[in-house]
């Protein structure tokens, strides 16, 4: 298992000009680990990150979109895997931070977590490529190459909580920051 913040730091080192859609705990950490006007945290409701990312990806096929989803969030919007598989955006990389719990909501375990394979579900839904990482060195070695691959790709990151970061949902959903994003994205 990887500590989430260390895992995100690997992604940040390989990030160039990608738009990153991040939800919940990953979002709280990502805005500190990789601050940028191209961070999109304005997802508004649990489970919706992958769908926002699809809209961004279809709207701007010339930009690469990374979504940092949660496992509980994805379970709430599993159909989005089929929608994304069908739409087949080449510029979308769907990372799932899998910790097996509803961490933001008290750390209660997810239903079925011993049996679920997000990569298997994604492949069955039409994602041509999937990856799983539980080891930081493997993720570090492969991340740069995966970010350049044609999507849609699902990357299952097996994580545990790492260092603590401040929690600020008001910042994540701030319309003012969203407007800054829109201006930066539409340049």
């Amino acid at each position, binding site marked *: 298992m990887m500590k989430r913040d260390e895992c995100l730091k690997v992604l940040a080192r390989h990030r160039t000009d990608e738009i990153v859609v991040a939800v919940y705990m990953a979002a709280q950490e990502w805005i500190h680990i990789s601050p940028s006007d191209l961070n*999109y945290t*304005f*997802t*508004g*409701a649990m*489970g*919706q990150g992958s*769908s*926002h*990312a*699809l*809209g*961004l*990806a*279809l*709207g*701007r096929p010339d930009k690469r979109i990374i979504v940092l989803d949660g496992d509980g969030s994805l379970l709430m*919007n599993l*159909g*989005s895997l*089929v*929608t994304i598989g*069908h*739409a087949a955006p080449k510029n979308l990389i769907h990372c799932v931070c899998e910790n097996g719990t509803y961490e933001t909501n008290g750390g209660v375990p997810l239903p079925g977590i011993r049996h679920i394979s997000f990569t298997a579900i994604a492949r069955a839904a039409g994602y041509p490529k999937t990856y799983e990482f539980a080891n930081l060195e493997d993720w570090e070695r492969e991340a740069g190459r995966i970010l350049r691959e044609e999507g849609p790709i699902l990357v299952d990151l097996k994580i545990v909580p790492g260092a603590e970061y401040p929690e600020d949902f008001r910042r994540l*959903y701030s*319309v003012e920051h*969203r407007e800054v*994003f*829109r201006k930066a*994205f*539409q340049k």
Partner: protein
Amino acid sequence: MELKACDIIREIKRSGIRFVVALPDRVTSEHLLKPILQDRELKVVQVCKEDEGVSICSGLYNAGRRALLLIQYTGLLDSVNSLRGVAVEGQNPVCMMVGLLGKEPGVAPTRSKRYGVRIVEPILDAMGIEHHLIEAAEDIAKIVPAVERAYERSAPVALLIGREPR
């Protein structure tokens, strides 16, 4: 009184919309969605559940594109939390075209015998979401101003389709 689907499609295009995010609805499938699927000027994104569509439309908006969410009222009811968080609180101009399946012709939605149809407008009112009934030919003229107003206000709008377009 007949609603012409080709006129609705013309107005959708005239409002600058180029993406239609859709989940089939018996009121609009045959004469609206099927022609739209064949229309080269409109790109259709098919979703598995309507709340996905609220967020896809928002992502498209934030990418600088205009979109329409074409759904049934049952899907609108199922998407109330996404509409709350993504469209209203998130101030995204999600433009919806919503089929009122089972609404009786010429009867106001709030007077329908169908419970589900009857509660649509009160729920939209409670959420502060602007809505317009598109039931007669002259109502089609409401489409462009409603979409323009949604983008000006950065707020959602629901265009309620009161009878099957032909």
